[in-house]
């Protein structure tokens, strides 16, 4: 490499660094602003000129949430719903995916097509019939109502992804179990599931995220304060007279921790699963 091209490369590199840093401001500044504002007293949120770190740095916005059982309840609700949705989705979707991956049966093509198509049904379209259906089934304002309606959107996705994953595993594995007299369920849970952990984890995380973030059903299918989830709880902090901006920010941070933690812990599975989903789905 000549001196000239080395210099050219350096200039290129600084150019790329400048552009990528400007992009990072666009992407990251709003999140940074949420973070710093969660440590300010509410009166300083719109201080002019704005301060990054307030001299009155305070953890009040966090204590206000932890010390208020009503607000803690939003988090408990969200955890209960999202964890149940994730476990049930995986349990049911694994069996369905197993049938799609390992059996040939009448109607398979049709069911498969319906599942793929159902992913595109707008939630708002289901909203109106749900309202009467959920009331009729006595599921209005209950955990079960939220769990079941969230699963309508997590199941199709999970079945498609897990079928794809199981298809990559050799059939000899479960045939061996059956020769030994084991049932199909033994083959699935004892042999296939343990070696599918990466796929199951990425589907599980995505399922958890869908449920944790769900807004429309949580808004319309629950009524009382003690059944509300975090996304609705944040909205409820917009009072009629004053906005508790600092608390909305601390609640946003706290409400994002599960997803951020899952993302950091399982980044590789997560991105791998998502991108293979985008390529295949």
């Amino acid at each position, binding site marked *: 490499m000549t001196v000239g091209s080395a210099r050219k490369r350096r200039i290129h590199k600084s150019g790329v660094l400048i552009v990528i840093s400007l992009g990072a401001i666009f992407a990251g500044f709003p999140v940074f602003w949420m973070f710093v504002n969660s440590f300010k007293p509410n009166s300083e949120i719109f201080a002019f000129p704005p301060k990054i770190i307030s001299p009155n740095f305070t953890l009040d916005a966090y204590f206000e949430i932890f010390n208020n059982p009503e607000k803690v309840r939003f988090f408990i609700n969200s955890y209960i719903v999202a964890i149940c949705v994730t476990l049930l989705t995986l349990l049911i979707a694994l069996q369905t995916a197993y049938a799609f991956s390992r059996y040939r049966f009448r109607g398979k093509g049709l069911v498969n097509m319906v599942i793929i198509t159902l992913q595109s*049904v707008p939630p708002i379209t289901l909203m109106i019939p749900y309202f009467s259906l959920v009331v009729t089934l006595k599921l209005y304002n209950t955990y079960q109502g939220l769990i079941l309606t969230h699963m309508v959107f997590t199941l199709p996705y999970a079945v498609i992804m897990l079928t794809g994953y199981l298809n990559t595993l050799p059939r000899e594995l479960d045939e061996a179990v059956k020769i030994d007299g084991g049932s199909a369920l033994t083959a699935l849970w004892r042999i296939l599931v343990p070696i599918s952990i990466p796929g199951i984890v990425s589907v599980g995380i995505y399922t958890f995220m869908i449920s944790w973030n769900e807004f429309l059903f949580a808004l319309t299918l629950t009524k009382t304060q003690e059944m509300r989830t975090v996304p609705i709880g944040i909205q409820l902090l917009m009072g009629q007279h004053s906005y508790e901006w600092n608390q909305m920010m601390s609640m946003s941070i706290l409400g994002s921790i599960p997803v951020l933690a899952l993302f950091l812990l399982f980044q590789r599975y997560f991105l791998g699963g998502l991108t293979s989903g985008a390529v295949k789905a």
Partner: protein
Amino acid sequence: MLAPAKISKPQNFSTSLIKRKLEPYGFISPTVLLLLLLMVIPVFLVIRYSFMDNVIVNQNPLFVGLENYRTMIADERFIIAVKNTAFFTIVSVIAHLIIGLSFATLLNSELLSKTTRTIYRMIYILPWLFTVAIIAILWRMILNPLGVLNYIIMSLGISQNQTEWLSSESTALLAVTFINIWAGYPFYMISLLAGLQGIPKDLHEAALVDGATGLQKFWNVTLPHLKPLIISMSILDLIWTSQQFALIWMTTGGGPLTSTEMLGTYTYKLAFSQYEFSQASTSAVFLFLISMGLALVYNRTQRAREQ
């Protein structure tokens, strides 16, 4: 363990054959039941509602044919909602694509070290890790007339006004579209980055030998390779963005006046503020048909890719 299998009688064999035939239906039945009850039946119900006079409120609703559809098309607010949804969706999808592709290209640059790229990738993914409710609140704070964006604009001397981004008719639609662009590009970026990394190195080297410039290489090697991915992501994004409700609901609620009214908020208001459930069902069916149309196109492109 092998013994029982060997001495199984023919009779047992036939029952186990039936069992084997029925087994897959057992495995798929929970999924099928749930989707039937909470997806297929509700879709039929909502279509039926759209042909009745006011359901749910009315004990014995009457069949009114296409009456609700006529009312909908004649409703000025509906036309505005369609236009706003079209603007919001198309601008978002194009911007998502451009930003996603640019960021993916930057993150794939060989001029940067692996650590640098990992750190920036982490920052670039951030908007995707926050839920819509949080994104809405966050941007309401930033776009507040007294907020940090107006401070930056004023101190740079671009404008001296405290613009009310979300509550003035001239800027609200642009503002919610911008928020949606910010929230949605990482999905494209991650997928396109994986796509970029899947381009065989020798393709680029061959182009380099042929004396192609960076831009030529991008047009002739990179883009054709990413095309199938770009098409399928754009269709998915069109489906999702046209259905957007939560972001609009929590930032502007469709206002001021009708400036950010979209099909989602229009339908929701008809149902839950005006209790016009049949009329709401009609626009819900309209939105459903758009999504199904797009889903059909999506399935076609996917099948074409598989062949």
